[in-house]
């Protein structure tokens, strides 16, 4: 049984203002599976729905966002938990089985409370009450190469990298089976970024947990993820083993994302893709990528491409799959 099964999930931001109803289809008909002990990457440019998707799968959505259709099922220790049909089970599983490293997680620690209090507030009630909490926290921090002294500090006394590592420590203290990481490295410089990535990878290996890792930075995906899903305008357009996708992207959008990566020794100017991602309240017909796609044909405007098995051992949604080249 996979660790996470998402089945035809649709979650829209529904707004009604003065009788005018607007739907923003941030997560539109997405199906995917995350296996045990793997890091699943989600890529895509800003406003492609990455954060909306993982908020939905973690059950952390708030109005005006609403799940319209589909299901999200976790497998926690052999037990299946449906996020939206079993909210009570889900509430118990949070932090214990499912933790979340949030976007801008530097601000996860309350600036007017000591770090140890944040640990106590967030994690204490999810842990085995028989073991000494303080000891476990200290032991956990030591494994992540953080001095126990940081527990006495206020967040503003710590550097950005330390705070980021603390939030990872906070998210993994209960040794969860599933970790959702929303751009945990975006605000950090490259050196700290590398540190943090190594830390996440190390924690994941030790706990043998599954991680969904979101970032728009393709080089981070190349460094850390086992499988990669590429999102565009609220839909999944391609999925597969990370290495194979980087070697031979099937979808023209993926090809462009990979082509945008700078390579050492290559002095060519990178072409950027013309146009902008579409407004999700009024997406283009057919394939949502067609207005910007260099390979678009008449069929792309009319027919929505389905997710079909691709040549790289994954899936791709494109009428001209495999024809794109990384230039």
């Amino acid at each position, binding site marked *: 049984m996979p660790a996470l099964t998402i089945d035809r999930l649709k979650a829209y931001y529904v707004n009604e203002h003065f009788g005018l109803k607007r739907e923003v289809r941030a997560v539109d008909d997405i199906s995917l599976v995350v296996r045990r002990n793997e890091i699943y990457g989600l890529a895509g440019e800003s406003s492609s729905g990455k954060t909306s998707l993982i908020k939905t799968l973690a059950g952390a959505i708030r109005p005006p966002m609403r799940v319209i259709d589909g299901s999200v099922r976790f497998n926690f220790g052999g037990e299946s938990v449906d996020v939206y049909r079993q909210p009570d089970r889900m509430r*118990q599983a949070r932090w214990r089985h499912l933790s979340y490293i949030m976007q801008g997680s530097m601000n996860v620690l309350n600036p007017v409370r000591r770090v140890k209090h944040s640990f106590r507030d967030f994690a204490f009630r999810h842990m085995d009450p028989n073991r000494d909490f303080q000891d476990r926290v200290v032991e956990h921090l030591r494994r992540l190469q953080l001095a126990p002294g940081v527990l006495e500090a206020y967040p503003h006394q710590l550097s950005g990298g330390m705070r980021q590592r603390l939030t990872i420590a906070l998210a993994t203290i209960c040794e969860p089976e599933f970790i959702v990481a929303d751009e945990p490295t975006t605000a950090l410089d490259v050196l700290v970024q590398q540190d943090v990535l190594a830390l996440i990878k190390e924690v994941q290996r030790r706990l043998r947990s599954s991680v969904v890792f979101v970032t728009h930075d393709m080089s981070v995906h190349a460094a850390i993820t086992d499988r990669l899903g590429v999102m565009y305008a609220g839909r999944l357009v391609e999925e597969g083993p990370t290495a194979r996708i980087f070697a031979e992207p099937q979808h023209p959008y993926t090809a462009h994302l990979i082509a945008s990566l700078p390579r050492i020794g290559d002095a060519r100017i990178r072409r950027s893709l013309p146009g902008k991602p579409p407004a999700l309240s009024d997406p283009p017909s057919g394939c949502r990528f067609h207005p910007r796609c260099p390979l678009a044909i008449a069929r792309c405007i009319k027919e929505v491409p389905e997710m079909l098995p691709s040549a790289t051992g994954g899936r791709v949604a494109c009428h001209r799959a495999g024809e794109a080249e990384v230039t």
Partner: protein
Amino acid sequence: MKILRDLLRYNREFLAGVVLLGIILTMIGLSLFSPFDERTIFAVPPDMPPSLDHWFGTTSRGQDVFWQLTAALRNTLAFGILVAVISRLIALVVGLTSGYLGGKVDQAIMAANDTIGALPHIPILLLVYFVMRDQMSWVVLALVAALLGWSHDSRLIRSVALGLRTREFTRHAVFSGMRTLQILVREHLPYVVPILFFTAMNNLIWAIGLEVTLSILGFSDINRPSVGGMIYWANSHSAMVSGIWWWIAFPMVFVVILFLGLFMLAMSINEYIDPRSRLARMGA
């Protein structure tokens, strides 16, 4: 402790506030050693000017102004503190819940809040006084005043809470399964404690002003000494006309000292907590 020492050394308003309040607190402390019962009249010869026997003179009712004043300051300050504490509690609860819950609940609470804020205080207190008549004690009066005096500060606290509810750590707390009450008390309360402190000072000043006003008009327990009450009796005995100036002058001087002291303290604490007000005064 070090903060207090530094404030005393470098902040002249704080020093002045501490000294002025020190005078008031000394007076209040002395009230414990008063040789006269505070409610007894004609305990000393009436209408004596200030002398070595009676430092601030005596009243036409045969009371020693100095010892009356010590008791009066104690009662007035107790009233102010009681009002400030109760109204802080209400403001805190209303502000934090309203700001955190937001949406419709917030709108409803704030509608009630603004209604209370728009009510005129003195007519309502007079109304309550006339309805309660003999059951009216200073505690009841303080309670009514507190129920009227929180709405402005709860809005202030709400504005902070509104900002806190969308912060990452709040979302994290919600995600980790903390209950609303826990979030409010553990995560948000520490943020608004400074606001509580400096609004408490302002509220204290307001409450004392209210008490003095009501007592001067005679709408309180007139036999229980209070600063306003002393002036009320002085007026009813036409003290100014008959030249017993000390009966009015000393209560006034001390209420001014009390106000100035609290104001200086509130100002310097505000300056310490919010550095922007310091910059504003420097002309930034």
